[in-house]
């Protein structure tokens, strides 16, 4: 295990989907040859298919026995075609034709922006920015037969050794978040590097630095003074994506619970949620209900004149509040007890080699880890969540509009009210497409 762990928290209540972070990362890192389709940082609308499309149903990660779960390798169509625009004809040749993409796309990154879901004529969605999670137990590291992927001991950042990588792409298949990208020109795989060259110079990640919404918090998880430690371990208001994948991600999300639904009028978010709790549980695990409840309590405290450290943190007006970076010289040993706190928070089995079965199954999370015992409100994971496919209630909850028109049997889900949308042509073409060996019903 690394001596320290950099982590990031993103407050999904503040993300406005402006994609400034996406472009900051793009201009900083991925404007080279073979990187045209790569978005190490991307922002997607949820409920939605995401980027690459259907990534959260493609597999990867670990199963209950700590074996690498099989996954499909996304193709270029899953990442979206790189579009070309002939600006010259309009700007310099005076032809006056509209500047349109050179081909009629059926999918591109952020294709289903703002589509989301429907609930009795009320649309709902939220934005989900994603980067590599620099997991504590990276599946990509396990999968690489050349040991080309390593986790830095000093800060837990996961990197790919470009000298050792030969582009076999087992890591791309293993990553449950599909955040490793193959560079066809170089013949190697590449990924988010957590802007470690910037961190080493005392500058925060490009995506965080440029974010106008001030949604990102960066620091060492084991530093009690850092905002990520306080939000994740002390106040426990931030959760990782898909905890059942078994990789222990180190990018955490404050779940979206604001703004409330129209006509909220004093009802609890949990009684009348704007976003289906089933979907939030699908993304962030069953603990999301507890977290939302705690956030509501903190909001009520602040609204009634009290002082909420959680809200003061989340407002994050100041860079000093949002970021706490440590220089390499300052990275001594973590304070006593913090490592146990991290372990207690993220129960994770030891790494195994080449997907071999672990001797004993992972230990369950402790029952009472915070003030007051809310464990009675934690609902068990829904059936079907462990195999990487969304549970049936999730499929039904957010209907077809966000999903491109596909349901389990290829027919529109009952009660979805789908009258067809811009994605409808893609529904038909998707089901008629050339079947792949392990084609998934990705919604």
């Amino acid at each position: 295990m690394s001596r320290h762990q950099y982590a990031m928290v993103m407050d999904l209540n503040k993300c406005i989907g402006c994609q400034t972070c996406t472009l900051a990362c793009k201009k900083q890192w991925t404007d080279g040859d073979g990187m045209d389709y790569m978005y190490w940082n991307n922002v997607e609308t949820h409920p939605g298919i995401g980027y690459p499309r259907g990534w959260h149903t493609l597999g990867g990660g670990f199963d209950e026995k700590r074996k690498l779960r099989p996954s499909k390798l996304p193709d270029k169509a899953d990442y979206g075609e790189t579009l070309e625009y002939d600006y010259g004809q309009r700007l310099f040749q005076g032809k006056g034709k509209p500047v349109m993409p050179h081909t009629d796309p059926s999918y591109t990154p952020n294709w289903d922006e703002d589509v989301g879901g429907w609930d009795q004529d009320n649309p709902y969605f939220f934005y989900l920015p994603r980067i590599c999670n620099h997991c504590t137990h990276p599946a990509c590291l396990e999968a690489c037969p050349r040991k080309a992927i390593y986790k830095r001991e000093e800060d837990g950042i996961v990197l790919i050794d470009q000298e050792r990588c030969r582009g076999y792409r087992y890591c791309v298949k293993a990553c449950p978040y599909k955040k490793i990208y193959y560079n066809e020109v170089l013949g190697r795989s590449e990924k988010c590097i957590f802007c470690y060259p910037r961190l080493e110079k005392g500058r925060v990640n490009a995506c965080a630095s440029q974010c106008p919404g001030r949604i990102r918090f960066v620091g060492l998880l084991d530093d009690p003074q850092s905002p990520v430690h306080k939000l994740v371990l002390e106040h426990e208001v931030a959760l990782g994506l898909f905890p059942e994948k078994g990789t222990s991600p180190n990018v955490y999300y404050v779940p979206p619970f604001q703004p409330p639904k129209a006509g909220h009028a004093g009802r609890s978010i949990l009684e009348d949620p704007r976003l289906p709790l089933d979907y939030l549980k699908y993304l962030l695990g069953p603990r999301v209900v507890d977290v939302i409840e705690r956030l509501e309590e903190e909001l009520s405290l602040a609204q009634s004149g009290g002082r909420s450290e959680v809200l003061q943190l989340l407002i994050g007006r100041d860079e000093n509040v949002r970021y706490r970076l440590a220089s390499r010289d300052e990275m001594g040993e973590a304070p006593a007890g913090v490592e146990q706190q991290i372990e207690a928070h993220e129960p994770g089995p030891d790494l195994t080699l080449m997907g071999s079965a672990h001797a004993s199954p992972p230990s369950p999370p402790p029952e009472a880890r915070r003030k007051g015992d809310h464990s009675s409100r934690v609902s068990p994971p829904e059936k079907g969540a462990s195999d990487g496919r969304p549970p049936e209630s999730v499929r039904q909850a957010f209907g077809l509009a966000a999903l491109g028109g596909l349901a389990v049997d290829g027919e529109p889900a009952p009660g979805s009210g789908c009258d067809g949308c811009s994605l409808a042509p893609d529904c038909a073409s998707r089901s008629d497409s050339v079947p792949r060996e392990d084609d998934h019903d990705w919604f």
Partner: protein
Amino acid sequence: MTGSEKSRGSRALARGGAWRDLVLAGLPMVLICAATIASVPLAGAAGESPAPAEPGVLPLSSVEHRPSEAAQSLRAGDAKAWEEVPETVLKLNRTPPLYDGDPMDRGTSPPTRVAVVRVDSSLLLRIQWEDDSDDAIPPPRRLPDVGADGIYKQHSRGLDQFTDAVCVMVPRERGPRQQYPPLMMGGREDPVDLFYWHQERGFQWLGAHGRASTASTGHEVEGSARRWERGWSVVFELTGVAPRTPISFAVWNGSEQQRDGLKYYSPWYEVGR
């Protein structure tokens, strides 16, 4: 015996003697031809090779020498230049699947033949194998954008595709030996040289000292590759490969998602004299 009978007999004997002389004169040539036919293995004959020098050794067919003038056409893989060169049919096996989802071994391997010639100090190997699919990744398409350079010179296409490849493995320490290096990319005490052709990346000279240790040596290897009607024909030009040097081969079929250890491989052979 009467005089006429004698003369008839003498004439018969004279005629028979002429035939006998002819037969006797031609006998050495017949014997030479018979020996030559017996010594050259038939191309394409499955599994037939010259008798091994020692038990357990798999020799490649005897190495013929060619003049320097033939080097260029041999190196280019010219079919006519390689026409008369005897070939060895390789025994290939598929490695077992490493991960869930890797394709299973179907029990077949691509028919593969190797021909070897020496030209001056070089050893030229031509490896021909059958592969119905040309697994080249289609080149990206770009539109001209008058007035500005695109940020990306080409668009990615084959992100989930793998291409065809072939590799020749010889120990870094050439020459005959009692024990062959470990077949899995050599060993720490017995490294190997890997002469590798990849359909997209071309020819590479790699080295390894065990599994997962493959790395570039920084040197270059010459060769040529071309499609023939049923597969690939790749020529490598190696130097310093003494007779009886162990040699092994591997072939990858990109359309079967083969890469890394997922491949068809041969046991150790020995380069002929």
